[in-house]
């Protein structure tokens, strides 16, 4: 079976990435959790400010995951290609 991350990543990293992405997806789709008006932020009911704040949070999560994946281009397939090393 193929893996979604290139071979050679540490299992800790892979677990962290999986957790982060699943949390981002779960946090967005758990509608019963955020379908409420309290607590308000200014005049904004919770339902609205939660989702608006979720946008930068998910952006940071995706950025973190991409950094985790990029930091060690160890896979022999990738380094032999050279594409993972040159920026």
């Amino acid at each position, binding site marked *: 079976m*193929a893996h979604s991350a290139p071979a050679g990543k540490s299992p800790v990293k892979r677990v962290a990435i999986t957790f982060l992405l699943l949390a981002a997806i779960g946090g967005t789709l758990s509608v019963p959790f955020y379908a409420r008006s309290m607590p308000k932020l200014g005049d904004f009911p919770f339902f*609205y400010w939660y989702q608006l704040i979720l946008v930068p949070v998910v*952006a940071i999560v*995706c950025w973190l995951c991409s950094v985790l994946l990029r930091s060690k281009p160890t896979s022999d397939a990738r380094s032999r290609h050279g594409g993972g090393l040159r920026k």
Partner: protein
Amino acid sequence: MNPVAFTILVVSFLVVTMIGFAAARWRPAEDPMHLNEWGLGGRGFGTFVSWFLLGGDLYTAYTFIAVPALVYAVGAAGFYALSYTIVVWPIVFIFAPRLWSAARARGYVTLAEFARGRYGSQGLGLAVALTGILATMPYIALQLVGIESVLTVMGVGGTSGNAFVRDLPLIIAFIVLAVYTYLAGLRAPALIAFVKDALIYLTVIVAIIYIPTRLGGWGHIFGTASAHLKTVNPATGKPFGSLIVAPSGEWAYATLALGSALALFMYPHAATGVFAARKRNVIRRNVAMLPAYSLMLGLIALFGYMARATPAVNAGVKAGGGNSQLSVPLLFEHMFPSWFAGIGYSAIVIGALVPAAIMSIAAANLFTRSIYNEFFNPDATPAQETRVARLASLVMKVGALGFALELNKTFSINLQLLGGIWILQTFPAIVISLYTTWFHRFALITGWASGMVYGTIEAYRTPGGGQAHFGASTAPVFGHIAYIAIAALAVNLVVAFVLTPIFRAIRLPNGYDETRGAHYYADSVDGPAATAGTRGA
């Protein structure tokens, strides 16, 4: 008609068109009649342009007209679009790099070619191609409806009983788009995407800061919206909607968000955006920056409540036959000085025109590569291909015009959701197939057909917006109201899952998979890409 706003709209349209054509001449094509030129803008788009191309898929009339119109009419339920554009990024983060690598390693430019290559199945490729073409039509129709709503508010056409005069704004929108795409190809809209985004950011930032101060603050805006949504709709005997999603609407909200997110990158134009990236990592890096578009979408959705809090907009919508699509253009008309309203109108019109052009070009490429070349003329010359693609792009728009004229426009968002029902049925053949070829190719085709038939029948049976058929895209499934696309995908997967062991047992021939494990990790190189050393599968 407001002459200042109208003049600004016409001038900005002419200016961006000239930018587009001038840019084509500044970087002249070796052979303008080559499909790579017309259809892929010379295939020379880097990271920066990829970001605009990918993000541009979210910034369409869907964002500017359909979503706020839904929020205007039913409140919180319309906000599913924000959830959709948030959840789409982690999902894309997971599978898009694999898709990009496989496409780069094998030289695929459409999703249909991937499905065909993965299963050695012309039939599966054809299914994916036909679905892409069909599903893009209502999405383009949505863009036409968006342009139409601006023209209507500006006083072009009108509410006359004459069918031709009534549909005049739509017909003008169609002609402009058709001529524009036919002549310019992908190059012009891709370059104009910068101008378009600048106009949209400007309009949204000004609107979100300035309009609430004129309307007495957000407290007043939410208060007015809430009061309206609680009142009972005489047509249905129920409240119009709610400011917070009700428990009975939670399934619909979540499935609409998830279904739309899974569907987005199955569209031909979104796939083109992925394939255009220069490196594998570019996609992941882009995904971390693309939520900037989602944030804008969330702010634009709030325009729906601002419009509700503006009495003149409510009067205008009522005068327009209860067409809530008019709410955002009317909001600009009543809140902005006429010159800035003109800029806002330009943002909407160009913001609909550019994606509509990109969509019809992507679908035309799909037709040319995966149907015309594959089945009719494998030895077509580049000039023949370009001619076919141009004609196909016209057919796409005629189809879109049909959808726009036939379907009720009260909730234009339904056009996009209808396309989503269809396009999501290619998900198993594309995304699941990136990870496994466990499914039998004929089981996938049968599953796809089952999902298409089920989804179309369910959508046909659903009344709404004053029409008996294709009125809405959510229907009861096992006691919950849910997005039909998700239910149809479940049907699709169950059929494919059950049939695969049966087809294997009766030894139905499975196709040859031309991809290799390493193809799914391939990155761009200067030499040939398909020579990786490891095998992952």
